[in-house]
């Protein structure tokens, strides 16, 4: 089957520092794919390049078969790409509902309407409310993010991305900094996501990765060390050496 997201020999360097080297990567529709690697391997840089937040030094990025290497973020999002951030990147002073509604409004192309009150767009509010309810946040709609516990903020981070109804979802350590009980809850929610969404997840927690992902790519110093099924990755000697030996980072 064709890849929904693909990179061909993607490279990025900052001066003398190379953070991505000839990354060839394919994500198939509906796939559950994990990107792992030690700290500083270039995982978040890779996501930033996929999104268009960073411009690669060379190589190509294809989204749904089209070259988007030079396309701005907004265009990629319109073509079905969504992401979450490793470090919360929310509208901190706005209520939870607005955080999601802003994304829904962008997707439904009403963000430029200037006349009717935002609160009168019932379809936006209903969709956002339902989405938040599926993540167990129905009781926090009007709470500003700053007053929300951290674990729930991580869920809003995911909710915003889901508000875009992406075909491809890039999750940058969705459970970063969350105690394990709550991480478990986040994983359960991720497992319930619609199967047609292709998901690329960056994660340090190996239990979570091996339960969730069907394919795993191991990135070391900007290079793909190995790609395979969880079993293949778990068996690989090199992965043990460079990565599993220091997995207690995340």
């Amino acid at each position, binding site marked *: 089957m064709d890849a929904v997201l693909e990179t061909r020999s993607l490279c990025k360097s900052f001066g003398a520092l190379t953070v991505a080297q000839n990354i060839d990567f394919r994500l198939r529709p509906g796939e559950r794919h994990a990107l792992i690697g030690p700290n500083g391997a270039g995982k978040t840089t890779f996501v930033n390049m996929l*999104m268009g*937040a960073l411009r690669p030094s060379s190589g190509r990025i294809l989204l749904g078969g089209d070259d988007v290497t030079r396309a*701005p*973020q*907004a265009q*990629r*999002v*319109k073509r079905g790409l*969504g*992401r979450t*951030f490793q470090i919360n*990147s*929310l*509208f*901190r*002073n*706005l*209520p939870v*509902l*607005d955080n999601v*509604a*802003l*994304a829904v*409004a*962008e*997707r439904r192309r*009403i*963000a*430029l*309407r*200037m*006349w*009717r*009150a*935002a*609160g*009168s*767009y019932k379809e*936006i*509010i209903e969709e*956002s409310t339902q989405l938040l309810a599926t993540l167990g946040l129905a009781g926090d*709609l*009007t*709470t*500003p993010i*700053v007053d929300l516990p951290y674990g729930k903020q991580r869920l809003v981070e995911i909710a*915003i*991305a889901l*508000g*875009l109804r992406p075909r491809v979802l890039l999750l940058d350590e969705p459970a970063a900094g969350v105690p394990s009980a709550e991480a478990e809850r986040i994983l359960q929610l991720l497992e319930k996501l619609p199967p047609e969404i292709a998901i690329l997840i960056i994660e340090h927690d190996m239990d979570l990765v091996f339960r969730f992902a069907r394919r795993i790519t191991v990135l070391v110093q900007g290079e793909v060390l190995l790609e395979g099924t969880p079993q293949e990755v778990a068996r690989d000697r090199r992965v043990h050496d460079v990565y599993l030996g220091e997995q207690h980072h995340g």
Partner: protein
Amino acid sequence: MMHGGGYTVDARIRWPEWLPWIAALAGFFLLPEYLSLGARILIYILFALSLDLILGYAGIITLGHSAFFGLGAYVAGIVSAKLGITDAFVQMAAAAAAAGLLGALTGAVILRTRALTLLMLTLAITSIILEIANKATWLTGGADGLSGVVVAPILGAFRFDLFGRTAFLYCLAVLFLGWLLARRLIYSPFGAMLTGIRENTQRMHAIGAPVYWRLVGVYTLSAVMAGVAGALLTQTNQFVGLNVLGFEPSGELLVMLILGGVGRLYGAFIGPVAYLIAQDLLAKQFPEYWYLGIGLLLVAVVLFARGGILGLIDKWMPFSKPAASAKASAR
């Protein structure tokens, strides 16, 4: 009272929001000798409102907003004094169009930059326009100012009288429309989106908003509004001077808005009222103390009361507090 807009906010007009208009009409009947000051205040409120749109809601910091105000003022004056077109609405439309065009062009160029560079660029642009107005004497009158501005009776019926009654009501009517538009905008999805940009630009990019174009858009709108305010100034004074351009009017406007409260809609009302009345009372007799006072006040507001006058009112009267909004407005 905060006016943050968004999807959880009730956008209906609440009763205190009618107070400024009642006060303005009361002033019209009770203080006929202060109508010219009144008109000036109304004009500056419109100007401050335009700044609040980009500063308070979209988070664009500028030291050059007078470029649009001044351009509007000069275009309206030139249309009247040099082209002989006396219709008030044509003058205003020309001013709005010119300011909007300048806003779109300069916005498209400068809004790619940030922080100090952006600040400098806005300042340089208003300085350039000041320099043009100063040197193009044949068109603008240069340092002597542009006189001979004629405005025909509005709608063919209301003549600009010596006491400034027509001028006051005319400004009030235009401001009312401007307020209505600004208020709609702030509570609309567009307004919510602008707040999103101010709160977290990175995330707005990630949810697919072409942030740069949105900023250019609101910058242009704001420029149009400032241009209209400039046209009003020309029409009520029937004169344009160089003091509408450059750093000083921009800085003064910024001060007014900050004193009133940024990102709160009505900060743009309270600020100019307080500033201009105080200036009228103090500045002529005690110019030193006036500057001293304004300076100290500004330092105090920055250090202790980021929300301005409205922020203090919110703090002391903890009723009617919407769940969230302009906390970050003074960033």
